[in-house]
């Protein structure tokens, strides 16, 4: 049954039903409503969790890391500068193979200071070993949390995950969302069974140093686990579909790609606007489609190649910039499509909250079809 609510509230409600045992977070715009809601739920005894108040994001994720190592299901949420402050702990959490789930209400990084949305924050942690899932709408944002716990806690995976949804654009938007009941969530997501945990009676050390004889093999194991996460995600997404009717088995999802000459590639909420723009372009006989990337890590390179077979022009919408080398998603899509014959162009768009309209999507398609790309879209040259 659909209910009308704010995106942040939908996330908090679903996190509650995932029964985390420890929550530690530090409030930061636009993530704030999620952790306020969860703090209230803990205070009201609606959720049997320890809510650890901390003085910084570094401490928030450190507390989560310790609690996870002790065998608890844990949760955090952050964004932007908060995630930047967690940088060191992020690498440690993946390296120690702790299945932490953290919501990222995507926001730009300073300086200059901006509270508005782009995806620079999570993209900048792409090499940390965390799985990264991106939601197009608030239903998907809520659902991906359940899938994330399933994938992360799988003993063949044991990695942390970001569930990314666009700050403000989704987090502060009210729209209909179907929330599964506690019983339904329990049926999908069993209690956390740690593979190993801190136990005074059976001492273990986590995050010890590895000499040159071992370090490479540790990194290799993490890398392999990320690749295995593709199948785990597909399985968890398919089973989610069987139980709830919304299938997330696809790591990438095509929209009107069947006969498309030109394909947009994007992640997150911009996909919704792109779909509406594509419908309008299709009415004018333009053969345009969209490929939505749901899992940025692991990166679905073969899936992208497969989905874009027959497409001659590809336009990647990047809500981030790897300064000095173009957009991060575009770079990886180009790498995946190397040798395919398709012309792949990258567009830096919607940084720091700049609004994207249907006509902007159409303008990008026009540029790509004219062979103009690898550029900032909509640059205000008059202020340069």
């Amino acid at each position, binding site marked *: 049954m659909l209910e009308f609510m704010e995106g942040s509230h939908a996330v908090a409600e679903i996190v509650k039903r995932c029964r985390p045992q420890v929550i530690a977070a530090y409030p930061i715009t636009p993530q704030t409503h999620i952790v306020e809601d969860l703090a209230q739920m803990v205070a009201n005894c609606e959720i049997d969790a320890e809510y650890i108040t901390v003085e910084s994001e570094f401490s928030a994720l450190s507390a989560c890391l310790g609690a996870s190592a002790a065998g608890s299901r844990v949760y955090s949420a952050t964004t932007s500068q908060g995630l930047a402050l967690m940088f060191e702990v992020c690498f440690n959490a993946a390296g120690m193979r702790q299945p932490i789930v953290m919501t990222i209400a995507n926001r730009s990084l300073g300086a200059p200071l901006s509270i508005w949305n782009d995806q620079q924050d999570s993209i900048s942690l792409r090499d940390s070993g965390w799985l990264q899932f991106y939601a197009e709408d608030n239903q998907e944002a809520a659902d991906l949390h359940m899938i994330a716990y399933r994938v992360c806690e799988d003993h063949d995976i044991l990695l942390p995950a970001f569930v990314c949804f666009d700050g403000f654009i989704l987090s*502060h938007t009210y729209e209909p969302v179907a929330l599964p009941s506690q019983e339904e969530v329990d049926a999908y997501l069993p209690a956390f069974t740690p593979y190993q945990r801190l136990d005074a009676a059976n001492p273990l050390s986590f995050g010890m140093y590895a000499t040159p004889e071992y370090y490479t093999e540790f990194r290799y194991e993490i890398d392999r686990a990320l690749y295995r996460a593709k199948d785990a995600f597909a399985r968890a997404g398919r089973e989610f579909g069987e139980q709830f009717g919304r299938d997330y088995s696809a790591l990438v999802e095509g929209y009107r790609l069947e006969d498309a000459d030109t394909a947009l590639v994007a992640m997150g909420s911009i996909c919704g606007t792109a779909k509406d723009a594509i419908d309008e372009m299709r009415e004018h006989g333009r053969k345009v489609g969209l490929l939505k990337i749901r899992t940025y890590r692991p990166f679905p390179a073969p899936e992208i190649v497969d989905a874009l077979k027959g497409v001659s022009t590809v336009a990647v919408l990047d809500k981030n910039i790897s300064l000095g080398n173009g957009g991060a998603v575009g770079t990886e899509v180009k790498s995946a499509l190397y040798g395919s014959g398709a012309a792949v162009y990258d567009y830096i768009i919607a940084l720091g909250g700049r609004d994207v309209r249907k006509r902007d999507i159409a303008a990008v398609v026009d540029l790509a079809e004219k062979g103009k790309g690898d550029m900032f879209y909509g640059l205000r040259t008059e202020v340069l």
Partner: protein
Amino acid sequence: MRELRIHGRGGQGSVTAAELIAFAAFEGGVYAQAFPAFGVERRGAPVQAFVRFSDEKIRLRSQIYEPDYIIVQDPTLIGDVDVFMGMEAGGIAIVNTEKPDFDARVPKGVKVYAIDATTIALEELGVPITNTTLMGAFAAATGEIKLEPLEHALRNRFSGSMADKNVKAAERAYNQIGGAA
């Protein structure tokens, strides 16, 4: 799909109005989406909030540039802000003003409903917060939301005598515009 843009000043409850109108529309059986023009909110500064209504799931995420409807909470905004921007013939504007003959360049074919929501709010609520009053006017002028789900939305948001007062303010505006619409 129909689109509403609400113009107000920080502190006047424009974002709440968007939420409650969208909630009432959803309760009435359509898809709805409500969101603010995200910013660093300051009391008194011009703000906007947006609502979309559709019979199908809403995917579009851009702000609203060509609204079918506008609500103007504060008459002093007219002049500071081009509240009618992007409106076309057939559009409907609900403007809170004491002076129905206010000076503004209204696009041709846009129907303006002027209502003294401040007086209604002061009499019913005791404060010049006009958002709930203007929701009643919006319901009567556009038919996008019915009075019953609007009352439900208000009672869902407010409790006790505050709920009664807000419902009464909305009803008064609904009836006042209802005669004109």
